[in-house]
């Protein structure tokens, strides 16, 4: 192969090229935040034309569950009502972002849409958090609706505690990393949907989110300790019913550990590259 390239050498280029460097602290923090804002904007743009549809659909499942619990006669007192309504709210908060991320990652990888992010100086954690944030924001109406309707219908009093804000935040992020992992391992959007359905079944029927902990068989009581939804439900119930703060903080700590662990695993497993 002949390569007459001497005329192509450009002595000015290396200095200019190497002058570009990733920002150091503190501008790295500013860059991180600005990138996060822009990723939020991209995700918001995905749903801005039909966001109201998502909010309405998000409310349907909690309403259906409460109607079922009411008319089946299984919810007869305010305490059980609080259990059901808060369990419903947790279902929305935790499952919404997880399912959304699972589908988005599976779909994005299937169609090489993630190449856009991979070719930019952004981290997988930023993309994951931005996607989870937007999903979480649109789940809040469903969550509040579930508590409001439940309180009115089942007659339980609500004692709002400001700690509900970090509870909501951590609950919505607690399984985001698991959603990313599932999206990465799924061979496509269909497998991702199957995974979402399976997790939903476990959380609804085999964990103390809608079913009281005492009613579960022993092995499920043990298994439920491995699910962040159990602690999210306990923390949310606590922040609505006047539970002592140390106990709520203990649940928050466990939620934080699940959130960090799943996000670490999810972003570690998330390979932009699909071969």
């Amino acid at each position, binding site marked *: 192969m002949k390569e007459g390239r001497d005329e*192509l050498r450009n002595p000015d280029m290396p200095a200019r090229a190497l002058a570009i460097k990733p920002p150091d602290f503190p501008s790295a923090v500013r860059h991180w935040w600005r990138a996060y804002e822009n990723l939020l904007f991209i995700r918001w743009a995905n749903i801005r034309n039909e966001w109201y549809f998502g909010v309405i659909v998000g409310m349907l499942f909690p309403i259906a569950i409460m109607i079922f619990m009411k008319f089946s006669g299984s919810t007869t007192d305010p305490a059980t009502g609080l259990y059901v309504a808060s369990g419903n709210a947790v279902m929305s908060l935790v499952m919404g972002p997880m399912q959304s991320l699972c589908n988005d990652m599976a779909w994005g990888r299937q169609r090489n849409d993630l190449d856009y992010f991979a070719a930019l100086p952004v981290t997988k954690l930023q993309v994951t958090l931005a996607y989870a944030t937007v999903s979480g924001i649109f789940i809040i109406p469903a969550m509040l609706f579930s508590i409001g309707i439940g309180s009115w219908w089942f007659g339980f009093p609500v004692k709002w505690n400001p700690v509900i804000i970090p509870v909501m935040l951590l609950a919505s992020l607690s399984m985001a990393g698991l959603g990313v992992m599932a999206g990465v391992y799924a061979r496509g959007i269909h497998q991702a949907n199957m995974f979402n359905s399976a997790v939903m079944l476990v959380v609804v029927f085999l964990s103390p989110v809608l079913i009281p902990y005492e009613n579960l068989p022993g092995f499920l009581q043990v298994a439920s300790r491995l699910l962040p939804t159990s602690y999210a439900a306990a923390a949310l119930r606590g922040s609505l019913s006047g539970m002592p703060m140390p106990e709520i903080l203990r649940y928050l700590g466990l939620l934080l550990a699940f959130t960090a662990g799943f996000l670490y695993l999810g972003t570690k497993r998330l390979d932009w590259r699909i071969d």
Partner: protein
Amino acid sequence: MLAYEVRGLTKVYQDNIVANNNLSFDIQCGEFFGLLGPNGAGKTTLVRQLMGLSEPSSGQIKLFGELLTGSTIDRIPWYVSYIPQRLGAVADLTADEALRVTGTLRGMDYNRAVKQAAELIDEFQLGYLGKRRIGQMSGGEQRLVALCMGLMASRPIMILDEPTNDLDPSYRKQVWEKLKEINQTRNTTIILVTHNVLEAEKVLQRVGIINKGEIQAMGTVGALKAQIDQRVRIDVRLKAESRDYVSLAFLRDLKDIEARTLSSQEVLLLVPRSAIQQVVDQVISNVGLMYVEDLKIVTPTLEDVYLQLGGGEKLERGA
């Protein structure tokens, strides 16, 4: 200094499909480098590997002298601008939003990103797209938006995958001129994959021809042209009504030329430069000017290089 050093790069997909086989080459800083090859040749896999989007099975890539490994591939986007062929991630953004967001994600200040986005939209006359989302645009419009996104927050290296696909001729010309301009004025190293060989010839400084995952030829356009058949090609196309009156049998008697009949009305002649005048005269006198639909004298082009060295045998295809 070298922008990229590629050594022994191999990529084997599942089912033992070899996309790249032991590729080794350098790309100089400030070069305008073109990667040519037929569909499935391994070009896109190669540029994805240069961007760190596809993990090599073996071999190594250095960017500005630094070996790209698991921990250093995150730095690639600070030095290299690449916009993938599919814009699914930003399909719900308008053109100006996509440009602004891409600029700020590359570290630009918001106001500077807005200004550059407006300048590019103005330069490429994309203002008419207004609030139309990228996903609703035509393929050509998406290409132009992708190119503009690639130009945001100028990087020392720009990688483009089929930048002129789906574009009409006037936009293609504008894109080539823009790329040439940024290569010359900003010294941006440009690496592009294209099938548009004839147009690319005008701007590319060096070319790599890849086929079946292997580099078939690499060098400056002039050096590659020198490697192929230096005879001039004369394409003759006769009018349809000539069928009953004209015979091309006389071509067999011409010395030192190679004639290939492509159809009853088309013939291709390979002629030494010294015999061009004589052959053209012979054709016109034997056929009659009234029956000649078209007669073209073509010197070797990059397309010939591509087809003879990498993409197959052009003459037999009669392209």
